[in-house]
Protein backbone atom coordinates (compact mmCIF):
# COMPACT_ATOMS: atom_id res chain seq x y z
CA UNK A 1 0.00 0.00 0.00
CA UNK A 2 1.23 3.45 -0.88
CA UNK A 3 2.31 5.26 2.27
CA UNK A 4 1.48 8.79 3.27
CA UNK A 5 4.60 10.90 3.28
CA UNK A 6 6.11 13.05 6.01
CA UNK A 7 8.31 15.80 4.60
CA UNK A 8 10.53 18.28 6.41
CA UNK A 9 11.03 21.56 4.54
CA UNK A 10 14.21 23.50 4.85
CA UNK A 11 14.20 27.15 3.89
CA UNK A 12 17.44 28.63 2.75
CA UNK A 13 18.21 32.31 2.59
CA UNK A 14 21.53 33.54 1.30
CA UNK A 15 23.20 30.26 2.16
CA UNK A 16 21.75 29.92 5.66
CA UNK A 17 18.88 27.87 6.99
CA UNK A 18 16.12 30.05 8.29
CA UNK A 19 12.89 29.71 10.17
CA UNK A 20 10.06 31.32 8.28
CA UNK A 21 7.05 33.18 9.62
CA UNK A 22 4.25 34.48 7.39
CA UNK A 23 6.74 34.48 4.52
CA UNK A 24 8.32 37.71 5.74
CA UNK A 25 10.21 37.14 8.94
CA UNK A 26 13.24 34.85 8.73
CA UNK A 27 15.22 33.75 11.69
CA UNK A 28 18.67 32.33 11.17
CA UNK A 29 19.18 28.66 11.99
CA UNK A 30 22.57 27.93 10.55
CA UNK A 31 24.25 25.46 8.31
CA UNK A 32 22.12 24.00 5.50
CA UNK A 33 24.08 20.81 5.06
CA UNK A 34 24.31 19.17 8.46
CA UNK A 35 20.63 19.56 9.17
CA UNK A 36 19.87 17.46 6.09
CA UNK A 37 22.21 14.79 7.34
CA UNK A 38 20.33 14.65 10.63
CA UNK A 39 16.90 14.44 9.01
CA UNK A 40 18.02 11.80 6.54
CA UNK A 41 19.01 9.49 9.35
CA UNK A 42 15.70 10.13 11.09
CA UNK A 43 13.29 8.34 8.76
CA UNK A 44 11.88 11.36 6.98
CA UNK A 45 10.29 10.24 3.72
CA UNK A 46 11.45 13.14 1.60
CA UNK A 47 13.02 16.50 1.90
CA UNK A 48 12.02 19.80 0.37
CA UNK A 49 14.63 22.46 0.10
CA UNK A 50 13.50 25.96 -0.80
CA UNK A 51 15.85 28.79 -1.57
CA UNK A 52 14.10 32.00 -0.60
CA UNK A 53 17.08 34.28 -1.22
CA UNK A 54 16.17 37.37 -3.14
CA UNK A 55 19.67 38.13 -4.33
CA UNK A 56 22.37 36.02 -5.89
CA UNK A 57 24.51 35.77 -2.83
CA UNK A 58 25.36 32.57 -1.01
CA UNK A 59 27.95 32.28 1.67
CA UNK A 60 27.95 30.23 4.81
CA UNK A 61 30.51 32.51 6.44
CA UNK A 62 31.05 29.90 9.06
CA UNK A 63 34.66 28.85 8.52
CA UNK A 64 34.94 28.92 12.30
CA UNK A 65 32.45 26.06 12.47
CA UNK A 66 34.57 23.92 10.18
CA UNK A 67 31.92 24.09 7.54
CA UNK A 68 33.01 24.13 3.97
CA UNK A 69 32.56 27.50 2.36
CA UNK A 70 29.87 27.08 -0.23
CA UNK A 71 29.79 29.55 -3.06
CA UNK A 72 26.47 29.03 -4.74
CA UNK A 73 23.21 27.18 -4.65
CA UNK A 74 24.45 24.46 -6.98
CA UNK A 75 27.33 23.70 -4.66
CA UNK A 76 25.01 23.64 -1.67
CA UNK A 77 22.84 21.12 -3.51
CA UNK A 78 25.85 19.01 -4.44
CA UNK A 79 26.89 18.91 -0.78
CA UNK A 80 23.36 18.15 0.40
CA UNK A 81 22.93 15.28 -2.04
CA UNK A 82 26.06 13.58 -0.71
CA UNK A 83 24.23 12.82 2.50
CA UNK A 84 20.62 12.78 1.37
CA UNK A 85 19.44 9.31 0.32
CA UNK A 86 15.80 10.16 0.36
CA UNK A 87 14.03 12.09 -2.40
CA UNK A 88 15.04 15.67 -2.59
CA UNK A 89 12.88 18.43 -4.00
CA UNK A 90 14.58 21.68 -4.72
CA UNK A 91 12.90 25.00 -5.37
CA UNK A 92 13.24 28.73 -5.30
CA UNK A 93 14.26 31.30 -7.89
CA UNK A 94 13.94 28.87 -10.78
CA UNK A 95 13.48 30.59 -14.14
CA UNK A 96 15.01 28.39 -16.83
CA UNK A 97 15.11 24.82 -18.11
CA UNK A 98 18.91 24.92 -17.89
CA UNK A 99 18.66 25.61 -14.16
CA UNK A 100 16.43 22.56 -13.77
CA UNK A 101 18.84 20.41 -15.75
CA UNK A 102 21.75 21.50 -13.54
CA UNK A 103 19.80 20.93 -10.32
CA UNK A 104 18.66 17.47 -11.41
CA UNK A 105 22.19 16.61 -12.43
CA UNK A 106 23.43 17.60 -8.98
CA UNK A 107 20.95 15.41 -7.17
CA UNK A 108 17.55 17.08 -7.08
CA UNK A 109 14.80 14.57 -7.80
CA UNK A 110 12.03 17.07 -8.21
CA UNK A 111 11.91 20.73 -8.91
CA UNK A 112 9.54 23.08 -7.17
CA UNK A 113 8.48 25.99 -9.34
CA UNK A 114 6.13 28.78 -8.40
CA UNK A 115 6.36 32.32 -9.80
CA UNK A 116 7.61 31.26 -13.25
CA UNK A 117 4.67 28.86 -13.56
CA UNK A 118 2.24 31.69 -12.87
CA UNK A 119 3.93 34.02 -15.32
CA UNK A 120 4.26 31.39 -18.00
CA UNK A 121 2.26 28.20 -17.42
CA UNK A 122 3.74 26.59 -20.53
CA UNK A 123 7.02 26.44 -18.57
CA UNK A 124 5.36 23.63 -16.58
CA UNK A 125 4.73 21.77 -19.82
CA UNK A 126 8.23 22.37 -21.10
CA UNK A 127 9.72 21.10 -17.83
CA UNK A 128 7.44 18.08 -17.81
CA UNK A 129 8.33 17.21 -21.40
CA UNK A 130 12.04 17.39 -20.69
CA UNK A 131 12.19 15.78 -17.25
CA UNK A 132 8.87 13.99 -16.89
CA UNK A 133 5.90 15.45 -15.06
CA UNK A 134 6.90 13.61 -11.87
CA UNK A 135 9.83 16.01 -11.70
CA UNK A 136 7.79 19.21 -11.78
CA UNK A 137 6.15 20.23 -8.53
CA UNK A 138 4.09 23.40 -8.72
CA UNK A 139 4.16 25.43 -5.53
CA UNK A 140 1.03 27.38 -4.68
CA UNK A 141 1.28 30.02 -1.94
CA UNK A 142 -2.12 31.05 -0.68
CA UNK A 143 -3.33 33.93 1.45
CA UNK A 144 -6.82 35.17 2.27
CA UNK A 145 -7.35 38.54 0.59
CA UNK A 146 -9.27 41.54 1.97
CA UNK A 147 -12.52 39.98 0.79
CA UNK A 148 -11.77 36.88 2.82
CA UNK A 149 -11.31 34.74 -0.31
CA UNK A 150 -8.35 32.47 -0.90
CA UNK A 151 -5.91 33.95 -3.41
CA UNK A 152 -2.65 32.75 -4.95
CA UNK A 153 0.40 34.93 -4.36
CA UNK A 154 3.60 34.90 -6.39
CA UNK A 155 7.14 36.15 -5.76
CA UNK A 156 7.37 34.41 -2.38
CA UNK A 157 4.08 35.79 -1.17
CA UNK A 158 4.72 39.35 -2.24
CA UNK A 159 2.55 39.72 -5.31
CA UNK A 160 -1.16 39.09 -5.59
CA UNK A 161 -2.22 37.26 -8.74
CA UNK A 162 -6.01 37.36 -8.54
CA UNK A 163 -6.03 33.61 -9.06
CA UNK A 164 -8.16 31.18 -7.13
CA UNK A 165 -6.03 28.32 -5.72
CA UNK A 166 -8.45 25.57 -6.81
CA UNK A 167 -8.61 26.85 -10.39
CA UNK A 168 -4.85 27.37 -10.53
CA UNK A 169 -4.17 23.89 -9.15
CA UNK A 170 -6.40 22.36 -11.83
CA UNK A 171 -4.72 24.44 -14.50
CA UNK A 172 -1.25 23.48 -13.27
CA UNK A 173 -2.25 19.81 -13.44
CA UNK A 174 -3.47 20.30 -17.00
CA UNK A 175 -0.18 21.92 -17.98
CA UNK A 176 1.67 18.86 -16.69
CA UNK A 177 2.53 19.38 -13.03
CA UNK A 178 3.34 16.14 -11.20
CA UNK A 179 2.50 17.36 -7.72
CA UNK A 180 1.16 20.42 -5.94
CA UNK A 181 2.98 21.90 -2.97
CA UNK A 182 0.32 23.91 -1.20
CA UNK A 183 1.50 26.43 1.36
CA UNK A 184 -0.57 28.78 3.46
CA UNK A 185 1.07 32.17 3.95
CA UNK A 186 -1.34 33.00 6.77
CA UNK A 187 -0.43 29.86 8.69
CA UNK A 188 3.32 29.90 7.96
CA UNK A 189 5.21 29.84 11.24
CA UNK A 190 2.10 30.22 13.41
CA UNK A 191 1.90 26.66 14.79
CA UNK A 192 -1.92 26.89 14.59
CA UNK A 193 -2.28 23.84 12.36
CA UNK A 194 -2.93 23.43 8.64
CA UNK A 195 -5.59 25.37 6.78
CA UNK A 196 -7.63 22.19 6.36
CA UNK A 197 -10.40 23.80 4.35
CA UNK A 198 -7.91 25.01 1.76
CA UNK A 199 -6.04 21.70 1.62
CA UNK A 200 -9.19 19.64 1.27
CA UNK A 201 -10.64 21.82 -1.47
CA UNK A 202 -7.45 21.66 -3.55
CA UNK A 203 -6.82 17.94 -2.87
CA UNK A 204 -10.31 17.07 -4.04
CA UNK A 205 -10.03 19.23 -7.16
CA UNK A 206 -6.94 17.57 -8.68
CA UNK A 207 -5.78 14.03 -9.46
CA UNK A 208 -2.11 14.64 -8.70
CA UNK A 209 -0.70 14.39 -5.17
CA UNK A 210 -1.01 17.43 -2.93
CA UNK A 211 1.65 18.17 -0.33
CA UNK A 212 0.26 20.26 2.49
CA UNK A 213 2.39 22.86 4.22
CA UNK A 214 2.08 25.74 6.62
CA UNK A 215 1.11 25.92 10.27
CA UNK A 216 2.11 22.65 11.92
CA UNK A 217 2.71 23.20 15.63
CA UNK A 218 2.04 19.76 17.10
CA UNK A 219 2.38 16.26 15.64
CA UNK A 220 -1.40 15.75 15.58
CA UNK A 221 -1.61 18.44 12.90
CA UNK A 222 0.10 16.06 10.46
CA UNK A 223 -2.64 13.49 10.99
CA UNK A 224 -5.31 16.15 10.42
CA UNK A 225 -3.70 17.16 7.12
CA UNK A 226 -4.04 13.59 5.87
CA UNK A 227 -7.36 12.57 7.36
CA UNK A 228 -9.31 15.82 7.08
CA UNK A 229 -7.27 17.66 4.45
CA UNK A 230 -6.97 14.54 2.24
CA UNK A 231 -3.35 15.43 1.46
CA UNK A 232 -1.03 12.78 0.01
CA UNK A 233 1.88 14.16 1.96
CA UNK A 234 2.31 16.44 4.93
CA UNK A 235 5.15 18.91 5.17
CA UNK A 236 6.39 21.39 7.73
CA UNK A 237 9.40 23.50 8.50
CA UNK A 238 9.74 24.84 11.98
CA UNK A 239 8.59 21.81 13.98
CA UNK A 240 11.44 19.77 12.54
CA UNK A 241 14.00 22.41 13.36
CA UNK A 242 12.97 22.99 16.93
CA UNK A 243 11.80 19.64 18.23
CA UNK A 244 13.99 16.74 19.27
CA UNK A 245 13.49 13.49 17.34
CA UNK A 246 10.63 15.21 15.59
CA UNK A 247 10.39 12.91 12.56
CA UNK A 248 10.20 9.77 14.68
CA UNK A 249 7.67 11.27 17.06
CA UNK A 250 5.55 12.58 14.18
CA UNK A 251 5.57 9.12 12.60
CA UNK A 252 4.53 7.49 15.84
CA UNK A 253 1.59 9.89 16.02
CA UNK A 254 0.55 9.06 12.45
CA UNK A 255 0.91 5.36 13.15
CA UNK A 256 -1.32 5.63 16.19
CA UNK A 257 -4.01 7.20 13.99
CA UNK A 258 -3.86 4.19 11.68
CA UNK A 259 -2.35 6.14 8.78
CA UNK A 260 -0.17 3.98 6.51
CA UNK A 261 3.39 5.26 6.74
CA UNK A 262 6.84 3.93 6.04
CA UNK A 263 8.23 2.25 9.11
CA UNK A 264 10.88 3.98 11.14
CA UNK A 265 14.31 2.94 9.97
CA UNK A 266 16.39 1.59 12.79
CA UNK A 267 19.48 0.60 10.87
CA UNK A 268 21.94 3.41 10.34
CA UNK A 269 23.09 4.13 6.82
Amino acid at each position, binding site marked *: MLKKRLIPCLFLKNGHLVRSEKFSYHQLLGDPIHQVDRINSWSADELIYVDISNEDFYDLRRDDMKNKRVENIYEILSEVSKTCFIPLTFGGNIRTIDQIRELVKRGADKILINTIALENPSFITEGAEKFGSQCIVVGIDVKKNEKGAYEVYSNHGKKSTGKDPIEWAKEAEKFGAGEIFLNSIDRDGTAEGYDLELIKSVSEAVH*IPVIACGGVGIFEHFAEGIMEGKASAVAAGNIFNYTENSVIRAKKTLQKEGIPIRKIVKKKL
Partner: protein
Amino acid sequence: MIVIIDYGLGNLNSVLNALNLLGIEAEISRDIEKIKKADKLILPGVGAFEEGMKNLKAFGLIEILNHEVLVKKKPILGICLGMQLFCNKSYEDGEFEGLKWIDAEVVKFDLKDKSLRIPHVGWNDIECDLDCALFAGGDKTQTFYFVHSYYLAPKNKEIAKGICNYEIDFCAVLEKENIFATQFHPEKSQTEGLEILKKFNQIGVEK
Protein backbone atom coordinates in the same frame (compact mmCIF):
# COMPACT_ATOMS: atom_id res chain seq x y z
CA MET B 1 34.32 -0.12 -11.65
CA ILE B 2 30.71 0.77 -12.35
CA VAL B 3 30.00 3.30 -15.07
CA ILE B 4 26.85 5.36 -14.61
CA ILE B 5 25.78 6.19 -18.13
CA ASP B 6 25.59 9.93 -18.70
CA TYR B 7 22.90 10.56 -21.28
CA GLY B 8 22.15 14.11 -20.30
CA LEU B 9 19.14 13.12 -18.22
CA GLY B 10 18.57 11.70 -14.84
CA ASN B 11 19.80 12.05 -11.31
CA LEU B 12 23.29 10.88 -12.10
CA ASN B 13 24.93 12.36 -9.04
CA SER B 14 22.46 10.83 -6.61
CA VAL B 15 23.42 7.40 -7.88
CA LEU B 16 27.13 8.24 -7.71
CA ASN B 17 26.77 9.60 -4.18
CA ALA B 18 25.04 6.41 -3.07
CA LEU B 19 27.77 4.23 -4.58
CA ASN B 20 30.44 6.45 -3.02
CA LEU B 21 28.85 6.05 0.40
CA LEU B 22 28.95 2.28 -0.09
CA GLY B 23 32.61 2.49 -1.06
CA ILE B 24 31.92 1.22 -4.57
CA GLU B 25 34.17 2.55 -7.28
CA ALA B 26 32.06 4.35 -9.85
CA GLU B 27 32.16 7.07 -12.43
CA ILE B 28 29.66 9.06 -14.48
CA SER B 29 30.56 8.89 -18.14
CA ARG B 30 29.45 8.57 -21.75
CA ASP B 31 32.95 7.72 -22.94
CA ILE B 32 32.81 4.59 -25.06
CA GLU B 33 36.21 3.33 -23.87
CA LYS B 34 35.16 3.69 -20.25
CA ILE B 35 31.89 1.89 -20.90
CA LYS B 36 33.85 -0.93 -22.56
CA LYS B 37 36.21 -1.25 -19.59
CA ALA B 38 33.53 -1.06 -16.89
CA ASP B 39 32.63 -4.20 -14.92
CA LYS B 40 29.04 -3.10 -14.64
CA LEU B 41 26.77 -0.39 -15.93
CA ILE B 42 23.94 1.62 -14.46
CA LEU B 43 21.37 3.46 -16.55
CA PRO B 44 19.61 5.80 -14.15
CA GLY B 45 16.74 8.02 -15.04
CA VAL B 46 14.56 10.92 -14.22
CA GLY B 47 12.85 12.12 -17.33
CA ALA B 48 10.65 11.49 -20.27
CA PHE B 49 11.00 8.39 -22.42
CA GLU B 50 11.21 10.14 -25.77
CA GLU B 51 13.93 12.49 -24.57
CA GLY B 52 15.81 9.54 -23.04
CA MET B 53 15.94 7.58 -26.30
CA LYS B 54 16.72 10.70 -28.29
CA ASN B 55 19.70 11.44 -26.04
CA LEU B 56 21.01 7.86 -26.11
CA LYS B 57 20.98 8.11 -29.90
CA ALA B 58 22.46 11.60 -30.02
CA PHE B 59 25.39 10.55 -27.81
CA GLY B 60 25.98 7.46 -29.94
CA LEU B 61 25.40 5.14 -26.98
CA ILE B 62 22.93 2.64 -28.39
CA GLU B 63 25.36 0.51 -30.35
CA ILE B 64 27.90 0.23 -27.54
CA LEU B 65 25.19 -0.53 -24.97
CA ASN B 66 23.71 -3.23 -27.20
CA HIS B 67 27.14 -4.78 -27.57
CA GLU B 68 28.12 -4.63 -23.89
CA VAL B 69 24.76 -5.87 -22.62
CA LEU B 70 23.55 -8.30 -25.28
CA VAL B 71 26.83 -9.68 -26.60
CA LYS B 72 29.31 -9.31 -23.75
CA LYS B 73 26.57 -9.91 -21.15
CA LYS B 74 27.84 -7.19 -18.87
CA PRO B 75 25.55 -6.69 -15.84
CA ILE B 76 23.45 -3.56 -16.12
CA LEU B 77 21.01 -1.97 -13.72
CA GLY B 78 18.25 0.25 -15.05
CA ILE B 79 16.61 2.62 -12.61
CA CYS B 80 13.14 4.09 -13.18
CA LEU B 81 13.27 5.61 -16.69
CA GLY B 82 16.40 3.52 -17.25
CA MET B 83 14.30 0.39 -16.66
CA GLN B 84 11.63 1.60 -19.05
CA LEU B 85 14.19 2.33 -21.78
CA PHE B 86 15.14 -1.38 -21.76
CA CYS B 87 11.69 -2.21 -23.15
CA ASN B 88 10.23 -2.54 -26.65
CA LYS B 89 8.24 0.63 -26.55
CA SER B 90 6.59 3.24 -24.41
CA TYR B 91 3.32 5.07 -24.74
CA GLU B 92 4.54 8.11 -22.80
CA ASP B 93 3.07 11.10 -24.67
CA GLY B 94 2.98 9.18 -27.94
CA GLU B 95 4.51 5.91 -29.03
CA PHE B 96 8.29 5.50 -28.94
CA GLU B 97 10.62 2.59 -29.47
CA GLY B 98 13.03 1.59 -26.72
CA LEU B 99 16.22 -0.48 -26.55
CA LYS B 100 14.16 -3.67 -26.97
CA TRP B 101 16.15 -5.79 -24.53
CA ILE B 102 13.05 -6.65 -22.53
CA ASP B 103 9.89 -7.85 -24.21
CA ALA B 104 7.58 -5.40 -22.49
CA GLU B 105 5.61 -2.28 -23.10
CA VAL B 106 5.54 0.80 -20.93
CA VAL B 107 2.00 1.97 -20.31
CA LYS B 108 0.30 4.64 -18.24
CA PHE B 109 -1.57 3.83 -15.04
CA ASP B 110 -5.26 3.70 -15.83
CA LEU B 111 -6.85 3.23 -12.44
CA LYS B 112 -10.51 2.79 -11.59
CA ASP B 113 -10.21 4.34 -8.17
CA LYS B 114 -9.97 8.02 -9.06
CA SER B 115 -8.86 8.91 -5.55
CA LEU B 116 -5.56 7.19 -6.34
CA ARG B 117 -3.18 9.86 -7.58
CA ILE B 118 -1.01 9.68 -10.65
CA PRO B 119 2.01 9.83 -10.68
CA HIS B 120 2.41 6.96 -8.26
CA VAL B 121 4.71 8.82 -5.95
CA GLY B 122 5.94 7.80 -2.55
CA TRP B 123 6.97 4.74 -0.60
CA ASN B 124 5.30 1.50 -1.44
CA ASP B 125 5.80 -2.14 -0.48
CA ILE B 126 7.22 -4.75 -2.79
CA GLU B 127 6.74 -8.47 -2.58
CA CYS B 128 10.24 -9.65 -3.32
CA ASP B 129 11.32 -12.84 -5.03
CA LEU B 130 14.23 -13.69 -2.77
CA ASP B 131 15.84 -15.74 -5.55
CA CYS B 132 16.61 -12.50 -7.33
CA ALA B 133 20.22 -11.48 -6.88
CA LEU B 134 19.16 -7.98 -5.90
CA PHE B 135 17.19 -9.25 -2.92
CA ALA B 136 19.40 -12.12 -1.75
CA GLY B 137 19.10 -12.51 2.00
CA GLY B 138 16.65 -9.60 2.35
CA ASP B 139 13.12 -9.41 3.69
CA LYS B 140 10.12 -10.70 1.73
CA THR B 141 8.39 -7.32 1.94
CA GLN B 142 10.45 -4.20 1.48
CA THR B 143 9.54 -0.54 1.06
CA PHE B 144 11.01 1.62 -1.66
CA TYR B 145 10.54 5.07 -3.13
CA PHE B 146 8.65 5.33 -6.42
CA VAL B 147 7.84 8.23 -8.66
CA HIS B 148 6.35 7.38 -12.04
CA SER B 149 3.19 7.57 -14.11
CA TYR B 150 4.06 4.70 -16.45
CA TYR B 151 4.79 1.11 -15.59
CA LEU B 152 6.15 -2.01 -17.17
CA ALA B 153 3.89 -4.72 -18.52
CA PRO B 154 6.25 -7.60 -19.38
CA LYS B 155 5.08 -10.33 -21.76
CA ASN B 156 7.00 -12.91 -19.78
CA LYS B 157 5.91 -12.69 -16.14
CA GLU B 158 8.88 -14.81 -15.07
CA ILE B 159 11.26 -11.90 -15.31
CA ALA B 160 9.28 -9.87 -12.74
CA LYS B 161 11.12 -10.38 -9.44
CA GLY B 162 9.42 -7.73 -7.38
CA ILE B 163 5.73 -6.93 -7.49
CA CYS B 164 4.23 -3.70 -6.30
CA ASN B 165 0.53 -2.99 -6.01
CA TYR B 166 -1.15 0.28 -6.89
CA GLU B 167 -4.69 -0.95 -7.54
CA ILE B 168 -3.04 -3.23 -10.08
CA ASP B 169 0.05 -5.38 -9.63
CA PHE B 170 3.00 -4.17 -11.65
CA CYS B 171 6.59 -5.18 -12.21
CA ALA B 172 8.82 -3.18 -9.86
CA VAL B 173 11.96 -5.26 -10.26
CA LEU B 174 13.11 -7.37 -13.16
CA GLU B 175 15.95 -9.76 -13.79
CA LYS B 176 16.73 -11.32 -17.14
CA GLU B 177 20.17 -12.90 -17.35
CA ASN B 178 22.58 -9.97 -16.91
CA ILE B 179 19.84 -7.34 -17.11
CA PHE B 180 18.48 -5.94 -13.85
CA ALA B 181 16.11 -3.08 -13.28
CA THR B 182 14.04 -1.37 -10.65
CA GLN B 183 11.08 0.93 -11.18
CA PHE B 184 11.76 2.49 -7.77
CA HIS B 185 14.81 4.56 -6.90
CA PRO B 186 17.24 2.50 -4.81
CA GLU B 187 19.48 5.55 -4.47
CA LYS B 188 16.58 7.36 -2.80
CA SER B 189 15.20 4.52 -0.71
CA GLN B 190 17.52 4.89 2.24
CA THR B 191 18.96 1.72 3.77
CA GLU B 192 16.82 -0.79 1.88
CA GLY B 193 17.62 0.95 -1.38
CA LEU B 194 21.35 1.14 -0.73
CA GLU B 195 21.24 -2.56 0.00
CA ILE B 196 20.00 -3.16 -3.57
CA LEU B 197 22.94 -1.22 -5.02
CA LYS B 198 25.31 -3.20 -2.81
CA LYS B 199 23.82 -6.48 -4.07
CA PHE B 200 24.10 -5.33 -7.68
CA ASN B 201 27.77 -4.58 -7.12
CA GLN B 202 28.27 -8.11 -5.74
CA ILE B 203 26.83 -9.83 -8.79
CA GLY B 204 29.43 -12.04 -10.42
CA VAL B 205 31.96 -11.39 -7.66
CA GLU B 206 33.38 -14.44 -5.87
CA LYS B 207 32.52 -14.30 -2.18
